[in-house]
């Protein structure tokens, strides 16, 4: 029918293997034009989804990384103060009335566009990724609600700027804070799980086509088993890819061959000290035995 029906293959062409749920969610986002809220543990590929969508639609990706204390000046717009000061100084001896200077320095030339304003003033609808929204404050959520519902920004000195294009919005959250119901209700929702064996294998072979298939299979088997252990931080897809690269760099062909070496490479998968301690040589040998 339209672009929506072949988003899956297009994502695949962009090097991203989406499961049915995610593909459907993205298609709904495209056809309903509503923001999509992706939740899930760190490392399940939420941010990658937005990148892949931008690549699949062949459009710009505008990314807003959230952090505590994020405010309107960092996300919507800011005046270029240095330039304003210079402009005032340059006009000092021209005898220009003050209100003319004011008009000049509060014009679009002096406006610094931040990601949210940038996203609604493009020619072609971009993908707007609002990453880790749970890290931002609740006040920021309120701004965001206004922009997501009206797609316009009001600047006191300039007036209202309406969207020239409606961005496709993807929000991600690691669940460090509960989001407000108002925000949730405006979004489509999808909970992203760690990929299953087949999908993770597909991702690995899409990213590292040179890897021998038997080894790739064993790597995925190992990581899938490892995620079932009682860990503080489960390894994500990026960690799997790192580890696979490390193993192929070290010339490992079989996971069962050299347990000590494999144990040393656990630093690619496990990122906290207690986790590294709990996954001992014995655990590695048990897991690689199962995976092989």
């Amino acid at each position, binding site marked *: 029918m339209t672009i929506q029906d072949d988003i899956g293959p297009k994502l695949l062409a962009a090097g991203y293997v989406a499961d049915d749920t995610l593909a*459907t*969610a993205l298609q709904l986002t495209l056809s309903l034009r509503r923001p999509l809220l992706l939740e899930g543990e760190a490392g399940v590929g939420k941010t990658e989804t937005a990148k892949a969508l931008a690549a699949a639609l062949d459009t710009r990706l505008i990314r807003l990384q959230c952090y505590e204390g994020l405010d309107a000046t960092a996300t919507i717009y800011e005046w270029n103060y240095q330039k304003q000061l210079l402009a*005032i100084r340059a006009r000092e001896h021209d005898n220009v009335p003050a209100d003319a*200077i*004011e008009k000049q320095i509060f014009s679009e030339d002096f406006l610094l566009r931040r990601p949210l304003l940038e996203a609604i003033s493009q020619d072609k609808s971009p993908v707007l990724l609002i990453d880790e929204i749970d890290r931002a404050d609740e006040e920021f959520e309120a701004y965001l609600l206004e922009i997501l519902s009206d797609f316009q920004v009001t600047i006191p000195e300039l007036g209202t700027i309406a969207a020239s294009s409606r961005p496709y919005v993807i929000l991600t959250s690691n*669940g460090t*804070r509960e989001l407000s119901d108002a925000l949730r*209700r405006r979004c489509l*929702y999808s*909970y992203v799980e760690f990929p299953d064996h087949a999908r993770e294998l597909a991702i690995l072979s899409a990213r590292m086509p040179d890897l021998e298939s038997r080894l790739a299979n064993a790597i995925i088997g190992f990581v899938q088993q490892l995620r079932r252990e009682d860990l503080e931080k489960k390894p994500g897809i990026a960690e799997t890819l790192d580890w696979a690269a490390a193993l192929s760099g070290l010339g490992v062909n079989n996971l069962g061959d050299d347990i000590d070496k494999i144990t040393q490479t656990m630093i690619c998968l496990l990122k906290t000290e207690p986790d590294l301690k709990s996954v001992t040589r014995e655990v590695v040998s048990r897991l690689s035995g199962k995976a092989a």
Partner: protein
Amino acid sequence: MAAGTDRATNAPLTDRIIGFVDHLRANGFTVGTQESGRIAAYLAEHPLPQLPRIRLELKILLTGNRDEWLRFDELFEAYFVASGRERTHIRRTTSPHVKNPLRHAPVWREHLADTNAGSDAPQIESDHAGDVSGEATGRLIAAKQSVDRKTDLKHIVDPDEMRAAEDLALRLAKAMRYRLSRRHRAARHGRRIDLRRTIRRALPRGGEPIELFRRTTPDRPVHIIVFLDVSGSMKHYSRFFLQFVKGLVCSWMQSDAFVFHTRLIRVTDAVRDRNSARAMTRLALMAEGFGGGTKLGESIATFNRTYARRLTNSRTVAIILSDGYDTGSADELAAELARLKRHVRRLVWLNPLLGWQSYEPVTAAMQAARPYIDHFAAANSLESLAAIEPQLAQL
């Protein structure tokens, strides 16, 4: 194809889906008429997909958090496959739409403010005879004295006084909460210069920024997580503490409440409920299945495993309201508190027994816990509850 014909062919399905939205709502989902309208509009405009696809699309459209995401499939099946079967028994415990409120579960009757609290009072009185504190009986007779902030809460037995004390606890907590969350301070000596205002004011002076405006990052409210011990040994205190917790936890500030006994239960939603009779009913339903004894270590472990990553941040203060009489192992408690400590900024332990004259925190659990506690204080009177405020204000 014309939208009109689609609308006609999809009409029975639309009805069915609106029924399904009602079904979800009855099961505690936050979906409204807006959502049903959107779905009807969506179905009218799009050709009908296959059933698994509809299920997936509805799931994405109608869920809003992980809990709903995980429950959706079950509810979908119940409605479209075995219609109405699930509806009668599942999820009634947390739904705010419980039609026939059940009476308080027996174990809770001792803890909760009930409208017919008069019948509870003599029981508390008789319990006092066996209590450690020698002066308890003397105070009991003087029950007519007015509630003041210094009175040990366990000495308050008159129903009117109890209500007054509960009211005071609630107001106290609300006042503390307000102070904590006051966001804006005068920024005369702020760290950064507010360039926008400075340049605006510089215009009439020929662009010379003579007056400098400053701004500062406001103090942010802390995030509070309260753990309330509702075991038998705490029963004289927990009803007041519950009011205190209710005042502290509110919908517009980040805060969470848990009660524990032998298990840990998250009661944030229930205590946020403005309708206090309904809130109590919900609490009572949640508390079903509680046994005797206290398993502090296990309860904290549940929190660490299930909630800690999601609910804590760099400004979290954990408050444990417990007397430290624990039937679990002290080693486990110490290990779990150590883990909890990594997630939260401060750990405050309020022990009602500490206000007693001859009490020494010598129980194995208290001994094990001491190294991890940042602030250990009494909480046997309303005044002592008020005294923890500085602990919450500074991080």
